[in-house]
């Protein structure tokens, strides 16, 4: 494995709400190497976006709180950094692309103003230099005639073009690490294809590492090297992409893959996962997936399964895999 850029160790994020405590991320650990693309997959409420925001230290406190764990970026614990150090890190070293470009970009500033803001603060460029760099960046992300679009406002762009602007902004200070939180979910499938292609080519060209968050298994199948599957705040499966698709080990991952209707064959019935996602305010005991799992055993109701290596480089958190060890 290449040199580790980001490492999460037992990250646990809790929100103290009026209704009670909610643990959104529970003991999540994974590592991303230089130049690697890591896909974090899960359904709504599984904790994937909270994980991303914790890395950027964007969890509002209160009500949020990082209860335990470490986030090592380039060897330093992000959680120990001062606000000033964090500001120096964000944008310059780790950048983030969000799902909704319309709400992530500022509607009252032109595209050039917002992107050059980042350039001038982080890199100390002059107004003129920044403007020239913005033109380059917009051209890089494939915005036609960037000279003309510089002084446009966000609402003057289409959804796909807005996402390109956001990517240009994220790439502006040449960060080594990019977090993309559902960057194509709000887009039509043809636009999604172009944005995915763009992100992958940028990663290659600039030698960045990528944390890609999505609920769409089709998207990770084509844009990531490694995959982590989250369910109800836990990481349930972790490994190389091909290995996970070919040989899923956690019943939830198997269920997810079976739930997707296929494009090449028409099945009469799909095989969905029974029941619905647990209420995170009152999560079930033991394995969070046990109420929906066809293989649930007594131990699943009692103990939270730990993430264990089930094959070289392939980890799963499921009691089905301790049977051999226990007996």
């Amino acid at each position, binding site marked *: 494995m290449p040199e580790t850029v980001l490492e999460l160790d037992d990250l646990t994020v809790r929100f103290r709400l009026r209704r009670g405590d909610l643990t959104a991320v529970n003991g999540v650990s994974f590592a991303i190497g230089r130049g690697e693309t890591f896909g974090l997959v899960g359904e709504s409420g599984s904790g994937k976006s909270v994980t991303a925001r914790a890395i950027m230290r964007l969890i509002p406190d209160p009500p949020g709180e990082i209860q335990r764990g470490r986030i090592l970026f380039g060897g330093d614990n992000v959680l120990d950094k001062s606000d000033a150090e964090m500001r120096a890190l964000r944008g310059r070293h780790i950048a983030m692309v969000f799902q909704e470009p319309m709400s992530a970009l500022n509607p009252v500033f032109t595209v050039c103003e917002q992107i050059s803001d980042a350039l001038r603060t982080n890199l100390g460029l002059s107004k003129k230099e920044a403007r020239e760099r913005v033109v380059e960046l917009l051209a890089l992300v494939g915005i036609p005639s960037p000279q003309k679009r510089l002084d446009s406002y966000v609402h003057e762009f289409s959804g796909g073009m807005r996402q390109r602007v956001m990517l240009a902004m994220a790439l502006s200070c040449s960060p080594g690490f990019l977090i993309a939180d559902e960057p194509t979910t709000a887009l*039509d*499938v043809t636009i999604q294809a172009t944005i995915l292609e763009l992100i992958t080519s940028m990663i290659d060209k600039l030698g960045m590492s990528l944390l890609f968050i999505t609920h769409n298994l089709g998207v990770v199948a084509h*844009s990531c090297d490694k995959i982590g599957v989250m369910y109800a705040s836990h990481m349930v499966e972790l490994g190389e992409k091909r290995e996970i698709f070919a040989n899923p080990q956690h019943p939830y991952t198997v269920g997810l893959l079976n739930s997707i*209707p296929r*494009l090449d064959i028409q099945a009469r019935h799909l*095989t*969905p996962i029974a029941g619905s996602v647990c209420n995170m305010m009152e999560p079930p005991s033991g394995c969070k997936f046990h109420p929906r799992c066809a293989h649930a055993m007594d131990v699943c109701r009692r103990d939270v399964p730990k993430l264990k290596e089930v094959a070289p480089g392939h980890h799963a958190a499921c009691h089905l895999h301790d049977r051999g060890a226990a007996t």
Partner: protein
Amino acid sequence: MTAQGATDDMLLEVRGLTKHFTLHGDIYSKLAGEKAQVLKAVDGIDFHIRRGETLGLVGESGCGKSTTARLVTRLIEPTGGEVRLKDEDLLAFSPRRMKETRKDIQLVFQDPYSSLNPRKTIMHILSRPMEIHGLARSWNEKRERVLQLLHRVGLSVEHIDRYPHEFSGGQRQRIAIARALSVEPELVIGDEPVSALDVSIQAQILNLFRDLQEQFGLTYLFIAHDLSVIRHISDRVAVMYVGKIVETGPAAAIFEEPLHPYTKALLAAVPEADPGKPPPRLTLKGEVSTPIDPPPGCRLCGRCPRELPVCAEIEPPLVDVGDGRQVACHNL
């Protein structure tokens, strides 16, 4: 259900259906004497649905799929064209007749959070349509039927007196489906009914649609932007692009061998959940064209990899290419 379809199995026929919205510019453009722009949301489409069949209507945002659903149900009035339900002209129905007919065509919407009244119990939500259409009189009868409906969609008696906020997204969509079925419709129109749901729940609801169709011989017009969902649920498919149907035919044929450049592009852009499959890519240039005052000729002009000179001038009509397929393209 009415047993009229023994001789004629055509349930819905749409010919030349058109909806143009006039965009009134601001006062300055009016003073300057500029002509109002016209947004051609649906621009002359033809399709039909036979009894017991599922027609999948697929396309990207803004292509006119939802407008089509609204036109067919007369929630908005078309600018032109014909909608025939059981060989009768739906657009000529009197308001009273239309009200009666609404029981035959029911809608299931995308967002079950906004399509169910938060202040009413499930009992109320499911029994009100029966009251309106005089399908159940006494309270006992209504309750009996509501229980049956809940059972059919996979909910149970304990849910009957609850409010929508007590349910998850998937359960709410089940309630919305039960409401559509409460008046024993013939045609159910689903306008992106599974788009707001997580994959594992989406599969449950798709199975439910399928089971109900088999049980009650329902006919579906199923609208979605997700091609694999359309592939799964549809017998026949119609692909829309900027207000036009560009290709239609049996689902298997279209997905195995798409003929229109736009259908091909759509399929090539889908990322399949299988790393062994080719990665998604865009085979068209640029972005979706605008439906506002579209130029003459094919709507795909300027984006199409197989463009001919004629494409910019004459709009390609939807022509039969055999095997029940129709394609609107000059370059076949």
